[in-house]
């Protein structure tokens, strides 16, 4: 099995928002970062994959088969809004999930609790946001899931906690048989560990593929004011002009048209910002 998750032409219509033709493939053994502005449709896509929301079109294959109740036993999920109830205590949680997931591993779960510093007597409502995320992650990691779907797992976490989470995620894919799909807007995390990137904006696809290819297919360009010809102007994505100059993003193949101007390698965040701005301006 080469592909862990295949999403083909996935769509959903809401009165005020349309998600259309979302397509990507996550190979087994790798990490995919799922990026886009707030409201771009990341969470909706994840909910469609997990059948928490009914799709209007398209297809989702998990290990080459449609997602079923049985296959969901092999998918670990962490959502931004916690599914843990406030009055539960940390020690109650195992009882609730161990009954639901056949592959529950008591020792592994206890190991994550102690590693994350989660005390058994604490109530969920008394946990900080970061601790709640770790709690959800401990659950998701403790029943032998082959695929992790994480919605903003690092948001609200301090840099040290984020680093810990990233380390755990890299450990998770060590043996090459498991995959991770995670959405985030903290793209510096992604720049490090993601193998693939899927980028959506306003409900449609912008990019899916290798992270390194995405980073290599654009340059940031900067220059003084009045430095641009009409032809150059049309080639710039998300052009921003101000009293002392301009900046914007260009495709690597258009690079030669801007010889002599300052060119820099963009970060994923730069690419996301310029492309989103460029599409908003249209």
């Amino acid at each position, binding site marked *: 099995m080469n592909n862990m998750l295949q999403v083909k032409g996935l769509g959903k219509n809401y009165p005020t928002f349309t998600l259309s033709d979302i397509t990507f493939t996550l190979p087994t*053994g*790798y*990490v995919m970062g799922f990026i886009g502005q707030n409201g771009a449709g990341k969470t909706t896509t994840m909910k469609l994959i997990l059948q928490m929301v009914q799709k209007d079109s398209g297809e989702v294959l998990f290990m080459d088969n449609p997602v079923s109740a049985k296959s969901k036993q092999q998918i670990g999920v962490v959502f931004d809004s916690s599914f843990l109830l406030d009055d539960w205590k940390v020690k109650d949680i195992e009882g609730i999930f161990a009954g639901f997931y056949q592959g529950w591993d008591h020792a592994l779960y206890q190991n994550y609790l102690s590693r994350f510093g989660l005390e058994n007597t604490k109530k969920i409502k008394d946990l900080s946001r970061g601790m709640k995320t770790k709690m959800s992650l401990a659950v998701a990691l403790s029943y032998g899931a082959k695929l992790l779907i994480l919605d903003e797992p690092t948001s609200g976490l301090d840099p040290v906690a984020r680093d810990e989470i*990233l*380390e755990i995620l*890299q*450990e998770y*894919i*060590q*043996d*090459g048989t498991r995959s991770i799909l995670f959405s985030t807007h903290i793209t510096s995390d992604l720049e*490090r*560990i*993601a*193998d*693939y990137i899927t980028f959506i904006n306003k409900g449609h696809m912008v990019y899916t593929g*290798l*992270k*390194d290819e995405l*980073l*290599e297919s654009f340059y940031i360009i900067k220059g003084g004011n009045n430095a641009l010809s009409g032809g150059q102007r049309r080639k710039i994505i998300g052009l921003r002009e101000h009293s002392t100059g301009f900046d914007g993003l260009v495709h690597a193949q258009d690079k030669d048209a801007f010889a002599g101007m300052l060119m820099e*390698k963009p970060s994923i965040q730069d690419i996301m910002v310029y492309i989103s701005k460029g599409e908003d301006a249209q």
Partner: protein
Amino acid sequence: MQLIISNTSGIPIYQQIKEQIRDAILSGELQEGQMLPSLRQLAKELKISVLTITRAYTELEQEGYVTNMQGKGCFVMAHNSQLVREQLLCRIEERIKECIGLAKRGQITQQELLQIVTLLWEEIQ
């Protein structure tokens, strides 16, 4: 072997890894038959993506420095001295081009440049 990755150098991470491993092979620090760290192990240790390391290893294989044995790992190849020589010549040429560029900018003559090379050649043992 040590690998030191800079996040601010502007050089792609795969290229930094590739160059450092290549240098370790050329200097003899990594010897024929030695195994490179596993892809996933290294990705985890350096906190970078698996595919970034894969790319570094693949290019090292294409250039003849290592060989990938399916399921076993990546091993340093026997030194093909002709190949190593060519690679070194190639790198020397690149750097000399840079030097010539600098010389021309500073109106330094060919003779002066050659004198510097001769002088330094004798100084560096």
